[in-house]
């Protein structure tokens, strides 16, 4: 634990000194908030909780991209090799990735909340406990997916290609940019198997319906389950050295990290709960008569 904490502090310092990190993790999500509000929320203040939920989801989802790139860079530059001859284990290295990412994501979420509430005059704060658990579970879950990507790719080029594909799917098919009810039915059916959909849905419910941790159980359990599986697989597949290539079977192992979402997706397909919530939330912001977010 001592090693994990020392590494976490060190990696936070390094991230803060990295301009690319500051741009992608702080400036870009906040820019998204301004753009979303500018486009969708200018004449309709009641859309603010909905838009903020989407922006927070984008911020949290970004974890997987940043972490995978950072770990692969460290491996390619021979930085991880130096740690290998110390008593630091793969688990400490991976846990420090998750923790540093989590602690650095929280201020951005706080700034987004602050801007939404006091600059864009968002009415109500949703259920803060619900937001907090979704942000926490989501950040750790998506960061773990990043660790998996880093574990199964051998070069930065490979990492970037996989990240682009995953990011595109998460961004456009989960409701993070285009509301889920606006997507074609077959895309909605597919989105039920994506981790990003549960993150967006959970945050929207916490913001729009004041859903607390108890009523976000399915989303939380799937995120935490995904994080646990992804962490264990990453620790098994962890490579300190760029020379050590990922075995083919590693890619199969990696797929098992999405098992919680396949199960949840199958349940949601049968049950229709998530799509119904998404539709209600979307309708509520499309009806100008309502001025306050609905209570659940």
């Amino acid at each position, binding site marked *: 634990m001592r090693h994990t904490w020392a*590494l976490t502090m060190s990696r936070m310092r*390094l991230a803060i*000194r990295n301009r690319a990190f500051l741009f992608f993790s702080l400036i870009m999500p906040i820019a998204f908030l301004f753009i979303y509000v500018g486009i969708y929320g200018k004449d309709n203040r009641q859309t603010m909780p909905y838009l903020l939920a989407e922006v927070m989801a984008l911020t949290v989802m970004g974890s997987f991209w940043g972490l995978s790139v950072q770990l692969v860079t460290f491996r390619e530059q*021979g*930085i991880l090799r*130096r740690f*290998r*001859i110390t*008593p630091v284990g793969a688990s400490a290295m991976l846990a420090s990735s998750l923790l540093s990412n989590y602690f650095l994501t929280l201020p951005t979420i706080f700034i987004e909340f602050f801007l939404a509430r006091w600059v864009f005059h968002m009415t109500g704060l949703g259920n803060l406990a619900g937001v907090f658990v979704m942000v926490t579970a989501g950040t750790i879950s998506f960061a773990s997916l990043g660790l998996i990507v880093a574990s199964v790719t051998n070069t930065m080029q490979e990492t970037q290609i996989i990240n682009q594909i995953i990011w595109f799917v998460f961004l456009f098919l989960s409701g993070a940019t285009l509301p889920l009810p606006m997507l074609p039915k077959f895309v909605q059916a597919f989105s039920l198997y994506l981790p990003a959909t549960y993150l967006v849905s959970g945050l929207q419910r916490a913001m729009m319906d004041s859903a607390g941790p108890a009523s976000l159980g399915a989303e939380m359990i799937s995120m935490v389950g995904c994080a646990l599986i992804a962490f264990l697989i990453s620790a098994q597949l962890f490579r300190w*050295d760029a020379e050590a290539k990922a075995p083919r079977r590693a890619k199969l192992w990696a797929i098992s990290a999405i098992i919680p979402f396949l199960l949840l997706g199958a349940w949601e397909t049968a049950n229709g709960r998530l799509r119904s919530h998404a539709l209600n939330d979307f309708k509520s912001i499309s009806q100008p008569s309502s001025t306050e977010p609905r209570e659940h």
Partner: protein
Amino acid sequence: MLSTATIEVENLMKRYGDVEALRGVSFTVNEGEVFGLLGPNGAGKTSTVEILEGMRTPDSGRVRVCGLDPQSSGVEFKNVIGASLQSTALPDKMRVREALDLFGSFYPRRRGTPELLKRFGLEEKRNAFYSQLSGGQKQRLALAMAIVNEPRVIFLDEPTAGLDPQVRREIYDVIEELKKEKKTILLTTHYIEEAERLCDRVAIVDHGKVIALGTPRELKERSGAVTRITVRLAQPENNGALSNLEGVTECRTESDDYLLYSTRVPRTIVALVKHLEEQNNELVSLEISAPSLEDIFLELTGRRLRD
């Protein structure tokens, strides 16, 4: 004898695909000894060291460092070793003192950061980012990190590779300081000067095998390598005539110099002076070079270290 050694390597074998990197490497390193693995690139030096550091698994053979198996001893093993790796780096935006603090925090026993900064001449650079350091400063930091845990055994893989001669000499001074502390050091190098200056014993490695082992003096004495006499003459001479001088085994021309390789130096010099008098020629300069480890490597392999 094996049981008293700090490092024991027995019949180490390692293959990468079709390439046999190590073909039965064996040697021991005693406590407080500076032991050098000398050989050209690709000889198997780094593979040997990385197996000893626990970073690679041998195909077969036995390795012990302080009585511990690097593959299975985990944290206990990592606490007693320190290393400067051949290809490694730190994050660009990590400060010098932060690197020493961080790496020191991983160990139960550690040297203080101020002490290390002072000892390795990095005090002025304590707040500099890693990316702002010169090659020599990065190497000094790597050496400081290698001893941050007060290790019993230090592995230095090509510690001066790619550095200019002046910086290389600075690094030699640092390693000589460690030698005075009676640390057991295993270093790999392809610089003859480094092996001769720093090592108590040297194993010459080529094509994955130890082809000679001993102190630099023993290796020179044991070898049939000849002494080189470099002479410059007032007028050109016939190579054939110089080759026939007593004790000379070979004569070569290198720009204006004649290189005479002799097994009986005093007799060769007397014969040379007589010959020049007979030819009404004069000696402009004369230099005698004892056989170096480079000569020994050449004698053993037929190649130069940098070939």
